[in-house]
């Protein structure tokens, strides 16, 4: 912790503030009726006043993160690469659209922060046509970026207003080139913060860039064994109030691409135990194993109607189960992880303050037995201090 000397690290979450100094880690429940800056400075003024602006580092997921919709040509390359870059930049993906199906795709009604259009290597032309423009006309978005074949960029520029054009993310060897899009999305996140009044005020107390929390957590992963007893390959599940993130070692997937990260990230936007409670319950009710799980936990589905500490615990256990289902062969999400090869599961987020180690082990064992028909038992590691993010903050 010598790197922490004179530094204050702050994580602004959707439910809590976390402050880390060389002496301890504190958590403060947020007051949602107050501006974030006012709330933070009111609750933690006596700590903040001891640090210079340049020694305060902040990461935040409180602005909800950015949302994106990706339009690509194939699942194997353009969509896969753009999805991977977006997730690892801390962006939430609303939907991905295959261009050949674009006329059959329903247009989302939400406001999309950024649309990513991608497809083809630079030697290919005439990939996109009027169908794209028609789709975009019906879409409500704030930014749009093109990272596909260079030969189509002039045509798209003519037909799409305010289109940002970046170098192709697919090179001539069909490998991913992630840097430019990653930087663009990170800057967009930054601009989003600057546009959100209550986050923007945080620059009154720091002179450092505010990063997205998932981005920071991803940075911590290669160093995690300095803090916990874990062995690769492992996954880190961050179950928060609004979303559940899963960061996984890349050797757990068959279809890798060559990127800078050792670990990739997936986000389940509607799988949280506080702000996304309703959609979590909805997902649970649609899982055929959940009733067996509830029986195993000795509760009935009436628990979903309750608002008690016990109900919260059950929801958290369900969230663990559902996220494992979503990345297993049982429910094909964006990736299937080879969960039988897992050595460790690290849990962080609000969940570590509520559930006991044995309650989590119970769920994981149930999952392996029921879904994977296996006796496998990866070690469960709890980030009880809820400060795994500090490792990545110090690296920035």
């Amino acid at each position, binding site marked *: 912790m010598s790197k922490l000397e004179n530094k204050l690290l702050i994580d602004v979450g959707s439910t809590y503030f976390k402050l880390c100094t060389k002496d301890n880690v504190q958590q403060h429940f947020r007051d949602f009726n107050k501006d974030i800056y006012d709330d933070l400075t009111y609750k933690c003024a006596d700590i903040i006043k001891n640090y210079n602006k340049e020694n305060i580092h902040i990461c935040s997921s409180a602005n909800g993160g950015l949302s994106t919709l990706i339009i690509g040509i194939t699942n194997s390359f353009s969509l896969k690469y753009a999805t991977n870059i977006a997730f690892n930049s801390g962006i939430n993906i609303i939907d991905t659209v295959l261009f050949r199906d674009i006329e059959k795709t329903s247009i989302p009604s939400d406001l999309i922060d950024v649309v990513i259009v991608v497809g083809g290597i630079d030697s290919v032309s005439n990939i996109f046509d009027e169908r794209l423009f028609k789709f975009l006309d019906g879409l409500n978005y704030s930014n749009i970026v093109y990272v596909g074949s260079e030969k189509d960029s002039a045509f798209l520029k003519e037909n799409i207003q305010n289109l940002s054009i970046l170098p192709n993310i697919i090179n001539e*060897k069909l490998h991913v080139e992630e840097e430019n899009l990653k930087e663009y999305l990170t800057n967009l996140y930054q601009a989003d913060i600057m546009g959100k009044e209550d986050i923007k005020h945080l620059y009154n107390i720091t002179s450092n860039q505010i990063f997205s929390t998932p981005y920071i957590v991803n940075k911590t992963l290669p160093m995690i064994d300095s803090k916990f007893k874990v062995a690769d390959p492992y996954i880190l599940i961050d179950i928060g109030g609004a979303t559940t993130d899963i960061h996984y070692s890349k050797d757990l997937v068959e279809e890798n691409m060559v990127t800078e990260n050792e670990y990739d990230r997936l986000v389940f936007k509607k799988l949280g135990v506080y702000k996304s409670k309703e959609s979590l319950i909805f997902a649970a009710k649609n899982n055929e194993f959940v009733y067996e799980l509830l029986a195993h936990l000795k509760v009935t589905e009436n628990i979903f109607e309750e608002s008690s500490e016990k109900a919260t615990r059950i929801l958290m256990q369900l969230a663990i189960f559902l996220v494992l289902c979503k990345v297993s062969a049982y429910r094909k999400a964006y990736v299937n992880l080879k969960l039988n090869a897992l050595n460790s599961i690290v849990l962080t987020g609000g969940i570590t303050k509520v559930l006991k180690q044995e309650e989590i082990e119970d769920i994981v064992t149930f999952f392996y037995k029921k879904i994977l028909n296996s006796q496998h038992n990866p070690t469960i590691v709890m980030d009880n201090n809820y400060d795994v993010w500090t490792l990545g903050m110090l690296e920035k």
Partner: protein
Amino acid sequence: MSLLQEERNIILNNEHVDNFDFAEVEDFVKNASKDLFISYNFKTKNKMLVQPRGGFPTYDKMFALYDFFDKADVDVLPCTIDSNTRLNDYATAKKMLRLSEENEVDMLNGYPLVTHGYRTSRKMMTHFNKPISLRHGTPDARLLIETAIASGIFEIEGGPITYLLPYSKNFPLDKAFLYWKYVERVCAEYSKLNEPINRESFGPLTATLVPPCITIVIQLLEMLLSLEEGVKSFSVSFSQTGSMNQDIVMGAVIRKLARHYSEEIGVTDADIHLVYHQWMGAFPMDQNYASQLINMSTVIASMVGANKIITKTKQEASGIPTKEANAETVANTQYLLRILNGLPKLKDEQEEEILTAEVMAIMEAVFNDPADTLWRKVFNSIKNGTIDVPFSPHIINNNEMITVRDRNKNIRIIKRGKVPIPHRCFEYEKNQCDLNKDTTSIVNDIIHDIGIMQ
């Protein structure tokens, strides 16, 4: 408790491992017969060691194979691991082993060591009192090597580059480096207890027109990665290129530079050995031709002065060789080595100078990478094409280098991609080839050169 021990505890706390007893294993290694250590054999046997390949799924068949080899006067026994275990799919290996045991049909293409477990395997591995070499191809070999050493297998083949670029398409290379770091550390730890555990790199790579400079660079880098973790006995290796002269030059250069670079990193107390693989490319279907090729390989191994030769069989082109064919090769190779006396010492100074310059230029580029650790320098060098292995299936490999044989069957570089060999060396390489042909003819030459021994 050290970080390494913590990791070991987690790795071995696995449903497929039957209660790993660290203290007992340590005690076993400490008191194991020195004859089981190939590092000890290298020091004490004044001959080229002969090692075949081979592995069967069931205990009984594996034991029978070893018995055959023993009768054929083998020096080193092989333990070739099945594909499922190589991919860490122990559940399938277990299922297939049961099928093999119940039906007398081999449902696995090797010995599933993790599934058998070290307590069972150790009985067999120590029975013949000969060193055993682990042959696998596993990117994540942590559990496998723990089981191997606990079983009495004191030579571990492979490495993060040589077991990934020829074998895998997608496994992340950075992870492979970290997993192999664990392997090196465990080998180094056990080496303190008795004779050193020997690590051997896999020199053949794709066995498809790999130019000598690339082979040697990768061998040297895997050696350095091993030595920096404390390994005290290491074997560099390469396979027959198809040109006797090139093999002899390679042998001389790799020996000289292995010494040079190990001293560069301040390691002077490690034993470095040279291993020669008999022809690793496509074999002739005609078994008589195959036998000639095998004999020729043995002669070249002697000319090269290898410390160990790894044999092939005359059945190589037609499936998994029988134990009889394997044992026959061992006996023939031993006979040939006994009668190969008075071989002349050959030296091609120009070729040696060119190859040395190529290797040193690539090594310098690797060392100049700004990364803070050697493994990451090597990783970056592969990623940016400084090291490029022809015909590697792995997505990280640059695949821009093109090689072809010259009129004397030497492998020559005609397109270097991003590999920083000196300009004069590149010109020399190209000048040995007839490049005045059209592209189609050159492609046909390359195809012919791949199957040159068929």
